[in-house]
């Protein structure tokens, strides 16, 4: 009989090492996973709260809003309203997993399998992460960002820096490139770039230039609208990028701060698009590894039951009329879909053969799954692989709520032959970040006139912006732009629904 990894609930660092080795063996040999090197760190509850407040990253620049989040989490944790996560995993190379010290040995095994192998494989192989994140560079970049913000505070004052960061944070969700550009992001290069820029400024600085009289500005000939838009790269949906490049009166350090916030937003962009897949993958992997370890006799029956208990809690999906319901649980949906794919590949029914001719009965479960994990995001994953059987099993239905409709909310489709495709399409759409976020673009700047910045919000399905928030965000935007900003909400037929105009607060003139 194979040696047990541990007995009971206690663990020490040797146990962790054995557990990790055992998990690694299963993950690499049986599941064929491909992971970044692992770094496992044991932390306390307080450190976990710290990590929560800085979006899970081990280091981050200082800002009051993180203090606010910390205060909030701490309050609810102290009152027992909130449990803490068992682990946090960071998309970096080496892949860092934080384990809570309170976990039992079984839980540590579970989270190592889940985070250090499941998530880790997903981070390394999924196309979105490959395209948008630089796992090697992220920690160094965050370190650079932290120091840069600190230096700026020393040089230009805390309030100034805070104001710029506040504004950048407000626009963070609109500081993302949604389509890949020519260049891969290289965060290490970023750091050097900022250093070079500063050095260049210092080298060419000559106070005499200040004294040179400025000639009368040359009257520019009016250029055509098309030409102007092209020069400014319009329309532009990445507002932070646009401000960084084109805002007329920002100081270089302010542009660099915008750039930092933008890069960090971009780093998290893939995670928001792959919640279901990411958690589904990790849950499927930990389930496979734990089962395998139990079969090998390396985990006792008792410990395995403990694992099954927490696993069941994690993948619990309350029904819509349940008090605990708060949308689809990404763990539950993801895990169910991964298992469903396993079934389709290994043991398909006639229905599956008809719906999934490519993979049904292919028999190479891990091969198919690895391919899925690498090449899809939530939206396309659901649109492609949600099977009729799973829809029936979860009894999914689609509601259409039109406020104009007096009769009430219509049940548009249910889990039947007529509804499968519609339910699936709708669920996929619910997971499409591009569809959920407001579609806001910079469309024009009146450069020859009053320099007003004009943005459009394309309203989808009559869903407009929350007024108070929109005004506040626009205020931040105007402060950065330093001239008026107009946001026009238009619907599909270019009809103007609403127009906001905001002027910058005068204090920014100092910038």
């Amino acid at each position: 009989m194979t040696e047990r990894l541990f007995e009971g609930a206690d663990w020490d660092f040797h146990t962790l090492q054995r557990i990790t080795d055992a998990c690694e063996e299963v993950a690499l040999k049986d599941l064929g996973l491909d992971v970044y090197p692992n770094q496992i760190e044991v932390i306390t509850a307080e450190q976990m709260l710290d990590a929560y407040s800085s979006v899970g990253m081990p280091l981050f620049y200082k800002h009051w809003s993180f203090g606010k989040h910390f205060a909030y989490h701490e309050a609810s944790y102290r009152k027992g309203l909130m449990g803490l996560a068992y682990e946090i995993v960071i998309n970096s190379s080496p892949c860092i997993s934080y384990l809570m010290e309170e976990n039992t040995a079984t839980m540590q095994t579970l989270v190592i399998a889940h985070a250090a192998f499941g998530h880790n494989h997903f981070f390394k192989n999924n196309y979105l992460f490959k395209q948008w994140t630089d796992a090697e560079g992220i920690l160094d970049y965050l370190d650079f960002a932290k120091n840069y913000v600190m230096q700026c505070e020393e040089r230009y004052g805390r309030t100034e820096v805070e104001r710029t960061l506040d504004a950048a944070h407000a626009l963070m969700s609109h500081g993302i490139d949604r389509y890949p550009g020519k260049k891969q992001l290289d965060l290490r290069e970023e750091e050097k770039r900022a250093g070079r820029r500063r050095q260049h400024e210092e080298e060419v600085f000559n106070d005499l230039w200040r004294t040179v009289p400025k000639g009368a500005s040359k009257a520019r000939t009016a250029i055509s609208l098309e030409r102007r838009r092209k020069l400014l790269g319009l329309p532009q949906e990445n507002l932070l990028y646009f401000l960084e490049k084109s805002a007329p009166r920002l100081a270089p350090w302010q542009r660099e701060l915008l750039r930092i916030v933008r890069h960090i937003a971009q780093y998290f962009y893939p995670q928001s698009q792959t919640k279901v897949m990411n958690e589904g993958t990790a849950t499927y992997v930990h389930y496979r590894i734990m089962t395998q370890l139990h079969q090998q006799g390396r985990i006792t029956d008792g410990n395995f039951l403990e694992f099954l208990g927490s696993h069941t809690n994690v993948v619990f999906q309350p029904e819509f009329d349940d008090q605990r319901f708060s949308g689809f649980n990404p763990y539950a949906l993801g895990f169910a879909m991964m298992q469903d794919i396993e079934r389709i590949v290994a043991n398909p029914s006639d229905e599956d053969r008809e719906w999934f001719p490519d993979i049904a009965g292919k028999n190479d479960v891990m091969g198919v799954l690895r391919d899925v994990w690498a090449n899809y995001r939530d939206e396309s994953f659901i649109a492609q692989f949600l099977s009729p059987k799973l829809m029936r099993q979860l009894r999914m239905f689609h509601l259409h709520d039109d406020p104009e409709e007096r009769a009430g909310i219509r049940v548009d489709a249910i889990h039947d032959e007529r509804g499968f495709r519609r339910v699936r399409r709708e669920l996929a759409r619910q997971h499409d970040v591009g569809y959920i976020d407001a579609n806001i673009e910079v469309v024009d700047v009146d450069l020859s006139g009053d320099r007003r910045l004009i943005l459009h919000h394309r309203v989808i399905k009559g869903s407009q912006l929350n007024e108070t928030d929109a005004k506040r965000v626009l205020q931040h935007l105007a402060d950065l732009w330093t001239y008026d900003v107009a946001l026009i909400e238009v619907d599909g037929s270019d009809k103007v629904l609403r127009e906001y105009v905001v002027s910058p607060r005068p204090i920014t003139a100092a910038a």
Partner: protein
Amino acid sequence: MAIHIIDRRLNPGGKSLENRQRFLRRAKSLVQGAVKKTSQERDIKDVLEGGEVTIPLDGMHEPRFRREGGTRDMVLPGNKKFIEGDYLQRSGQGSAKDSGPGEGDSEDAFRFVLSRDEFVDLFLDDLELPDLAKRKIAQTESEGIQRAGYTTSGSPANISVSRTVKLALARRIALKRPSKEEIDELEAAIAAATDEDERAELVLRLEKLKAKTKRIPFIDPLDIRYRRYEKVPRPVAQAVMFCLMDVSGSMSEHMKDLAKRFYMLLYVFLKRRYKHVEIVFIRHTDRAEEVDEQTFFYGPASGGTLVSSALQAMHEIVRERFNPSDWNIYAAQASDGDNSYSDGELTGLLLTEKILPVCQFFAYLEVGESGGSAFDLSDSSLWTLYERLRNSGAPLSMRKVSERSEIFPVFHDLFQRRDTAQEKAAP
């Protein structure tokens, strides 16, 4: 593949501390308001225990572009009876709206927990000890003594043995003073010697060694070192707080409660300024006694009223135990204002001659029944007396209180930063 397992538990905590401070700084006025409000609802005993406060989210809001309204589509699990084309009744207005259970962003208030220190800091932020520098400058500092290296002269009590021996040893080694072992060895060799010539030579060597030993003393006055001390001015970091209270029959529970609240605030306030704060409770009727806290507030007593007895007791305690040059002395007296008429002169004399010169601060709090109708009447005998003293220049602070809610404002008023409140003349 190398796997690193790292124990981070011992890393210094409080990584978020700075962010938290930034948050508090930003929200300062809001939090301060909330702290004051919370503290009024609380029992004074745990008024400064820290705890949860709620601030309006307005200034702390992090706005984002958010969409709302319009037609909504959703896919849900757990269908039981619906078929395509059914209509569901909307239950009430906007109940279908799911307000995300996120950061409380959807609410207009933000709740969080303040630690005890943060709470006290905010609570007492705009208060300060009365500026008594002109009167007390000598007393706020005392001379302390501090070690400062060695010296070659001093009193025998200060000889540093280890340093002296160390120097002596160095000197003996340097001058090659023969060691005891060397001499013993030689003596043994003499005893064992058989040859006379050899023996004579050895004896000669021994004589030389012994002479050298005599010439080079084991400890020379040169070696002696004394510990050196330096006098340094040291601020007095301790305070004593005298609580004087009239416990005669005319003081009701309500009045005692008011007094107690005031004492509590004063205690917390002093505690924040001084490392060490002692409290002395003196209660009096027509005679005064020092008691413990329990007896002070709850012990039964009855009799007439002689304020001078309490002042006399305080004076004696100060003389016996609290030397004014070592202690900052604060006193707060609470009374309903009754005093026997004949006692007035003695009280005034004690106060101006004995008590006030040693006190940093003396507050008189006149407590009244809830409703405070008594205050419409003429001033009490004690109040009249004290007011006369103050008008003739005695540094007295005095206030009247009849409601619990007035305690903090009165306290606040007494200790307000003077630069901001110069113009606010005391009543």
